[in-house]
């Protein structure tokens, strides 16, 4: 088994008074795509927000490359090499496509060059001067992924990158995420779309009520298809 890049242990989190994560446990090996599966409100997005440091009220342990991150603020965590692509995509309307793309600062050497990004996402080159939010939903999703590749971060947190997109776009995004793994990125993917998650993920963690209730390797998915469908209510 490759070295562990991210390890989450007994993670608890609160929105105000309400206790939403009840001891999340999982780990993300280097170079793999790991998915968090589960129904709406299970705590998947909250888990990502805890890892990147946007949710302040959290306890337990989040180690990234062996370093404890639980008490750090978001900008410090991001600087250590974690990049976040939020569910709502977070494209800035007062910025052009190019400005959106160039926004995240470099946090490490070895980020993707603009040329390589334009190879993966030709549309972004064409639309560089457009207002960020004038892009279509699929293009905005591509921009949201593209802009975190420049920073040099090697762990990508992707929150539902396929939500609300047409099948052909989902296919394209899947190809892109696959080629990112081939380039050595480690990816933690939150998904409700199990067919997409199944195609992408090397291992899957099922989340319910703020806890990991089951886990499957890629090879185990086929044998447990019904069980997983039961968990996800599909």
């Amino acid at each position, binding site marked *: 088994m490759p070295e562990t890049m991210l390890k989450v242990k007994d993670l608890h989190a609160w929105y105000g008074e309400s206790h939403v994560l009840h001891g999340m446990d999982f780990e993300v090996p280097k170079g793999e795509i790991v998915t968090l599966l589960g129904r709406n409100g299970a705590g998947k997005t909250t888990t990502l927000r805890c890892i990147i440091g946007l949710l302040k009220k959290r306890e337990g342990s989040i180690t990234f490359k062996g370093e404890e991150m639980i008490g750090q603020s978001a900008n410090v965590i991001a600087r250590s090499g974690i990049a976040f692509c939020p569910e709502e995509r977070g494209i800035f309307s*007062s910025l052009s496509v190019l400005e959106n793309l160039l926004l995240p600062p470099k946090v490490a050497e070895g980020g993707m060059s603009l040329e390589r990004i334009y190879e993966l996402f030709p549309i972004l080159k064409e639309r560089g001067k457009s207002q960020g939010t004038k892009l279509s939903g699929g293009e905005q999703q591509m921009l949201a992924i593209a802009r975190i590749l420049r920073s040099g971060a090697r762990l990508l947190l992707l929150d539902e990158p396929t939500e609300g997109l047409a099948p052909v776009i989902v296919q394209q995004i899947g190809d892109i995420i696959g080629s990112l793994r081939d380039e050595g990125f480690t990816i933690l993917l939150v998904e409700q779309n199990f067919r997409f998650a199944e195609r992408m993920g090397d291992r899957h963690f099922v989340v319910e009520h703020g806890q990991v209730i089951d886990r499957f390797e890629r090879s185990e998915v086929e044998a447990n298809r019904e069980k997983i469908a039961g968990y996800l209510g599909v």
Partner: protein
Amino acid sequence: MMDLLGIPVPVLMGQLLIGLINGAFYAVLSLGLALIFGLLNIVNFAHGALYMVGAFVAFLLLDILGIGYWPALVLSPIIVGIFGMLIERFMLRRIADLDHLYGLLLTFGLALLLEGLFRQVYGVAGETYAIPESLQGGYNLGFMFLPAYRAWVLAASIVVCAATWYLIEMTRLGATMRAAVENADLVRAFGVNVPLLVTLTYGLGVGLAAFAGVLAAPIYSVNPLMGSNIIIVVFAIVVIGGLGSIKGAIISGFLLGLCEGLTRVFYAEASNIIIFVVMAIVLIVRPAGLFGKAA
């Protein structure tokens, strides 16, 4: 003597020039307010007081240290800017998560405190600050006399407004600031130290106020109340331009200065209220302001 609409041209031009000069101050002040409102989401009631402090710092630099106008034009905004950053770091940041009303109350209290302090020491009569030698005299334009200092004030404010606009709209730093206005959390999650950016923005905003204060010192007397006299009008202008809009603050600053000047020519009695009348009309017709985005 030439007449235009029954008004002698030199009178008309003279009032337009005064209007434009006032507009220059309005523009620089409302620009700072707009910057601060955008990123900190507070209405900075201390803005007028810090403008006054800017003028006083120039006065004190000259009075105590013999430092003249030109160095003061740079030093005073820096000093007041640092003072502003301390205010942000140690006071405003503590209440950043609370209702915006607290920010308003805190800065209003600071304004009263600063004004009271200077009033206690210098009274309300005001101190005079001489026009620098190189800008004394003026130019005869044929139809009117243009004092050199007023021409300088106009040019300097246009340059400062344009430079600030360029910084916000055309640079990487400006893009980061605009992004932080929209979604500060996400910008932090990209690794940007947003709290530091907020501190610097407040420093820049109040530095602009101090710059306006130094420009104003030789025209108006350096007076503890100079800030509270102008700030209410500036608030109206920020509302007219659209809260938080940089372009709106600059353009409406100059336009409303002109508008005030014109009113003084045609119906002088209304010149003190014309800006508020415009504000009322704009609020009815376009509540988000001339350049604001509807919420």
